[in-house]
């Protein structure tokens, strides 16, 4: 019980509450939720729906960053996965086959990154840059340069449907978050991942199979990117190799950092990364509903990164001694 209470008092959830309250102040009907045609409507639901792709990317990205890595290729993988799913249903394959194929392609892309990082020992930022540069080209190759539109009901349902009144994208993100959190926190896997992030050589000496863990986290990141790619394709009923997931890798990294995961590796939280994604989306929505031009989004995001950086920096810890022994012990 105490753990639940202290988790609810985390700075991320307080920040989310703050952003939501500002939104409510700027746009009084913000919290109004209506029930229509068997699903919920309202700004809050919209935040969950629009935030889902970044939240899903953040789930995979959190693991990668915990190993002191970063995955720049997720946006490109989204485009590739969307292109695969769309071209396959257009070619007449049943939708479940197309979805499985797209997920498999995402996984393969992730494992490729894992291979470069774990086996060839290349810096993650550069290893994933290869696919970030080439990925959109590959996606265009698959779609032959067109925006492939489809009418398949299952794919459209994944992007825009609803389950128990909630948008399907949000439900998928929630399920993925719970499954991944249970797998890494109910087993020692999360601890091993953090150990690799703190010191890979030491972790290997301690008997942790760091190479396999790196394959696992990059594979998961690719898989999550494919899920997000299918959702985005289903949402616009087409695969757009140029714009699907464009710059979302940066939002995903930001979400993970807001979620308290250290960019230096060794400490991560999947649920808080998802909260980070929702904070970003709540701010985007807030700027939209309050009538500011959407260009302010980028500036607000930059300001947010800066604040998070200052708070996380060693300088701030030196100036303001942290009294919580727990927070100190974690470092």
């Amino acid at each position, binding site marked *: 019980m105490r753990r639940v209470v202290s988790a609810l008092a985390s700075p991320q959830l307080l920040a989310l509450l703050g952003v939501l309250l500002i939104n409510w102040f700027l746009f009084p009907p913000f919290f109004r939720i209506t029930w229509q045609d068997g699903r919920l409507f309202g700004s809050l639901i919209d935040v969950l729906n629009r935030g889902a792709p970044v939240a899903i990317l953040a789930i995979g990205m959190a693991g990668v960053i915990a190993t002191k890595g*970063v995955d720049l290729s997720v946006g490109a993988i989204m485009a590739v996965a969307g292109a695969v799913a769309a071209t396959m249903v257009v070619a007449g394959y049943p939708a479940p086959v197309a979805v499985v194929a797209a997920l498999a392609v995402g996984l393969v892309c992730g494992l490729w990154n894992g291979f*470069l990082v774990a086996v*060839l*020992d*290349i*810096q993650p*930022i*550069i*290893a994933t*840059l*290869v*696919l*970030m*540069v*080439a*990925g*959109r*080209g*590959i996606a*265009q*190759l698959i779609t032959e*340069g067109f925006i492939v539109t489809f009418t398949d009901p299952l794919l459209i349902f994944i992007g825009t449907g609803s389950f128990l009144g909630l948008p399907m994208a949000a439900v998928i993100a929630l399920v993925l978050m719970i499954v991944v959190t249970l797998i890494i926190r109910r087993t020692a896997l999360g601890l091993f991942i953090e150990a690799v992030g703190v010191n890979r050589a030491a972790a290997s000496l301690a008997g942790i199979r760091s190479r396999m863990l790196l394959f696992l986290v990059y594979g998961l990141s690719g898989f999550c990117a494919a899920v997000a790619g299918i959702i985005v394709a289903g949402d616009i009923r087409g695969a757009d*190799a140029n714009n699907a997931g464009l710059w979302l890798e*940066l939002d995903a*990294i*930001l979400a993970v*950092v807001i979620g308290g995961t250290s*960019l*230096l590796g060794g400490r991560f939280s999947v649920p808080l990364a998802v909260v980070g994604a929702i904070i970003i989306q709540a701010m985007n929505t807030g700027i939209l509903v309050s009538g500011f*031009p959407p*260009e*302010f*989004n*980028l*500036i*607000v*995001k*930059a300001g947010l*990164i*800066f604040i998070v*950086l*200052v708070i*996380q*920096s*060693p*300088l701030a810890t030196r100036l303001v001694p942290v009294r919580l022994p727990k927070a100190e012990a974690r470092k």
Partner: protein
Amino acid sequence: MSRSLRPLVATAVIFAIAYALAVFQFPNMFSTRVLGNFLTDNAFLGITAVGMTFVILSGGIDLSVGAVIGFTGVLIAVLISLAGWHPLAAFALALAIAAAFGGIMGLAIHYLQVPAFIVTLAGMFLARGGASVITRDSIPVNHEFYTWISELTIRVPGGGRFSFIGLLMIAIFIIGALVAHRTKFGSYVYALGGNETSASLMGVPVARTTVGVYMLSSVLAALAGIVFSLYTSAGYPLAAVGVELDAISAVVIGGTLLTGGYGFVLGTFIGVMLLGLVQTYIIFDGTLSSWWTKIVIGGLLFLFIVLQRLIFAASTPGEKSH
């Protein structure tokens, strides 16, 4: 041959082979006209890549350069076309703003001890957002100064035109190479990229060098923005999206080690030329679609990263570099 020159030689050999193959297929590619256009078309990328070389040599990375190009283009277009400034005054202001911008990023990287990657990411959001706040439209620049510069070309036999901006890029590369290899600042940058702790113990002014590197990168990005504005005669907030990736690719393909401390400015020049060659080849071919550019660049990037790995694994037996 010295071991340390191998990546540079490898890049040069691959460029020579690729160019020879391209010329074999399209003899027209071997002409001063194509060469001149080559330099003009890649001028802004080349100038950005010089700054990126310094950043990567120091062990960092700068994701904000594309956004700085976009911001500079919009700023000078607004100052010239809407506020009636003289282009030179607008250029000076843009360069000063970029210097301050890069300096602040350098300060944040050094004093907050955060990865350069995330600080320059925030910088990228800020510059791109700032450009979009100034205007969302493309603003044309019509000024006699612009027409004067665009007519400032050296004509050579064979229909070749060496434009002002193409020659400016070459000048920046020469100056960059001199600064990197012949000045104290240059050796500080290499020392910093090799090992920050050792560099600091040896008396390298780490803070000053870090700030200087990011200032240099931003100023050169702003200069690239000016060149881009001369090239397109317009300012557009979404101009040069993704140029940071091309610049990083050019630096890596040019043989600079991504962990810092090792590389040559000349290598970056060959890297830029190789990227330009891929693009020109695809235009000459006509049947290949433009997205092949990205795939080929991705492939080249992979090739060179693996090549560097192999060379450096061979030169330091029994030891992993990180």
